[in-house]
């Protein structure tokens, strides 16, 4: 199985798809470069090591850093990965190359508009700014161009999903009885999750934020836009993570010299993410006084269930990697780790990303606990956490994956494996410095989203080490991370400029050890799982949203908000249902 040919390189077999993927990667990498530079400036600024910008501009940079990295880089990259995965696993091109370019074009236009609005914040007399941070809910208001750009971007992602569903539909007509190939299954479940979750942000942006920023409506209900943001804001975490999981499940075992341990287990994990990603967003609002404690408790329970697919992944992926090590001659309880191909930057990058994700899982458990969350809420601990998850588990996996994927779509060999290896290790070391210091700084009470966390007549205290030492670690870590991105971009640029090769990369993916044949066919019943996911969302969000609308002075705010109770939401739902029933009864009678 190990040496069977993949039947030609991807770029030769699917030239149109390769061009779309290259365009997606290009935009992703440009965003990565700009966003990482902003990150470096921020790390040096807030630690007071080097201040080259005005502190008021810090928030413009913070918004640019968040939007360009967490939305533009990640999503463009994952669109490239998904386009590759669907064409590869279904072994057929997209139904219409024009349609593929349409979503690339719409997403690009949206991303450019949003970026222009953000960068406008650096030009004082332009009258355009969007210093609303990545969490773009009211009462902070951005220029309408920012929201319009975001809306176009989101619609573009919907079209990209439609592209993959159309491919699947065409494939299904030719293969009525076959199981959905694993990579396509992962893409489709991820996109269904994305459709469900982006409804929240679409409603927030189209019905509230755009009319409000244009002056068509006077006010919005800030708690409603905040809740709708987090309705989308947690599942987007899984929209970042599931492509990384796709690479961990289907590519990392091969990079380790092994095979995926279990195909059905991978399917179960993706279904659990589809079901549980969305009805948990309220766990970002544990300190929000407008939401009743009972609803927060439900969100916490759902969140704890969400640990399950990640722990299943930890087992399956590590077992698959161990299989590779054993096939390469590895022995012993832990000595097998030495038999892994540590000099391959694609393998090492993904393995280090997985190790960091394990640490991020720990701090995520602290964030998710309703009471213990009070300890770290809105402190630097939280950026410390998500720089382990999206900032390493996802970003480092994407960079490491690029070393294996980019040669497949360019047809050229990676420019330098040693530089790639140095780059992924530098990212890991930089993040160890920065993230551990951020976590500890958060425990000391240092706030996040602040240009100058240095206050007169007040000293933060740490039980071990000193605040000075934490600042140095953050500045050093941020610098290493930026240098790592520079090395990455340099390596990829020179790769794309290289000469075409007959064998740019070993692209063959072996079959799983345990295939899908023996698993229940119901796993592939996407319509049923979508229905269950929708029901869970309705259960988790109907009462809280009703309470927010009633207590916060209606859909468009205006009134004084009152502290929330569970019964208020229940009353509104009861009134609405009763009046709807009465109206219906009146019409029928």
């Amino acid at each position, binding site marked *: *199985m*190990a*040496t*069977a040919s993949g039947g030609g390189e991807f770029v030769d077999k699917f030239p149109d798809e390769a061009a779309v993927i290259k365009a997606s990667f290009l935009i992703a990498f440009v965003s990565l470069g700009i966003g990482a530079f902003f990150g470096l400036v921020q790390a040096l600024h807030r630690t007071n090591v080097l201040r080259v910008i005005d502190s008021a501009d810090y928030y413009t940079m913070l918004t640019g850093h968040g939007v360009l990295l967490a939305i533009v880089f990640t999503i463009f990259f994952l669109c490239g990965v998904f386009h590759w995965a669907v064409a590869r696993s279904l072994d057929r091109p997209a139904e219409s190359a024009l349609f593929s370019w349409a979503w690339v074009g719409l997403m690009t236009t949206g991303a450019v508009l949003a970026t222009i609005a953000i960068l406008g914040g650096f030009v004082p007399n332009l009258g355009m700014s969007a210093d609303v941070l990545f969490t773009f809910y009211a009462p902070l208001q951005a220029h309408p161009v920012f929201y319009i750009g975001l809306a176009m971007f989101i619609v573009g992602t919907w079209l990209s999903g439609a592209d993959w569903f159309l491919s699947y539909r065409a494939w299904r007509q030719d293969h009525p009885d076959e199981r959905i190939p694993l990579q396509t299954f992962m893409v489709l479940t991820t996109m269904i999750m994305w459709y469900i979750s982006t409804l929240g942000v679409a409603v927030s942006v189209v019905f509230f934020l755009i009319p409000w920023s244009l002056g068509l409506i006077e006010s919005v209900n800030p708690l409603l836009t905040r809740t709708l943001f987090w309705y989308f804001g947690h599942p987007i975490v899984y929209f970042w993570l599931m492509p990384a999981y796709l690479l961990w499940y289907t590519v990392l075992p*091969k*990079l380790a*010299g092994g095979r995926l*341990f279990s195909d059905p287990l991978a399917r179960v994990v993706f279904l659990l993410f589809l079901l549980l990603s969305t009805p948990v967003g309220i766990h970002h609002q544990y300190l929000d006084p407008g939401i009743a*404690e009972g609803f927060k408790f439900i969100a916490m329970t759902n969140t704890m269930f969400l640990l399950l697919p990640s722990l299943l992944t*930890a*087992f399956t992926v*590590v*077992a698959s990697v*161990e*299989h*590779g*090590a*054993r*096939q*390469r*001659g*590895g022995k*012993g*309880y*832990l000595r*097998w780790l*030495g*038999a*892994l*191909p*540590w*000099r*391959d930057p*694609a393998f090492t990058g993904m393995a280090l990303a997985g190790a960091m994700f*394990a640490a991020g*899982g*720990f701090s995520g*458990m*602290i964030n998710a606990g*309703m*009471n*213990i969350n*009070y*300890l770290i809420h809105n402190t630097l601990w939280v950026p410390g956490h998500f720089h382990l998850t999206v900032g390493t588990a996802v970003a480092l996996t994407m960079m490491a994956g690029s*070393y*294996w994927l980019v*040669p497949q779509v360019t047809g050229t*060999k*990676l420019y330098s*494996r*040693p530089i*790639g290896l140095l780059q992924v290790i530098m990212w890991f070391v930089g993040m160890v410095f920065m993230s551990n210091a951020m976590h500890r700084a958060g*425990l000391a009470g240092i706030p996040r989203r602040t240009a100058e966390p240095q206050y007169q007549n007040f000293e933060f205290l740490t039980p071990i080490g000193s605040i000075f030492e934490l600042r140095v670690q953050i500045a050093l870590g941020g610098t290493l991370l930026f240098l790592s991105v520079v090395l990455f971009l340099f390596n990829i640029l020179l790769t794309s400029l290289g000469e075409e*090769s007959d*064998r*740019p*990369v*070993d692209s063959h993916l072996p079959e799983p*050890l*345990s295939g899908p044949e023996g698993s229940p066919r119901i796993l592939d019943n996407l319509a049923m799982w979508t229905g269950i996911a929708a029901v869970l969302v309705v259960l988790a969000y109907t009462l809280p949203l009703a309470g927010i609308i009633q207590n916060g002075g209606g859909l468009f705010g205006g009134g004084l908000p009152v502290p929330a109770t569970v019964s208020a939401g229940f009353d509104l739902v009861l009134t609405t249902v009763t009046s709807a029933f009465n109206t219906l009864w009146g019409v029928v009678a």
Partner: protein
Amino acid sequence: MAVDSTAEGAASSAARTSTDGGVPANADSQGDSGQADPPVDSIVGTADDGIVRELGHDDFDPVGTLVLVLIYMAILIGMWVFMYFVEFLGRGLTVVG
């Protein structure tokens, strides 16, 4: 044993042309080609070429994974206990609700 993966690209080309898609070259020949002729460049994703034995589903017992998962769980529980009892409760009253 760890295979020098920088040699894998060259080794793999040799293995593939000589075996025509069959079982990869054994570990000895990998080592030989790696030592004799260091490659000018190399490609990514060639860990398969270092395979010295093929393990099927029933031959593979992921005991190393179990060890790693147990180590991770021990760290996780230890850190959580520290966070809850020392950092959280150790700071006095927290008003909830």
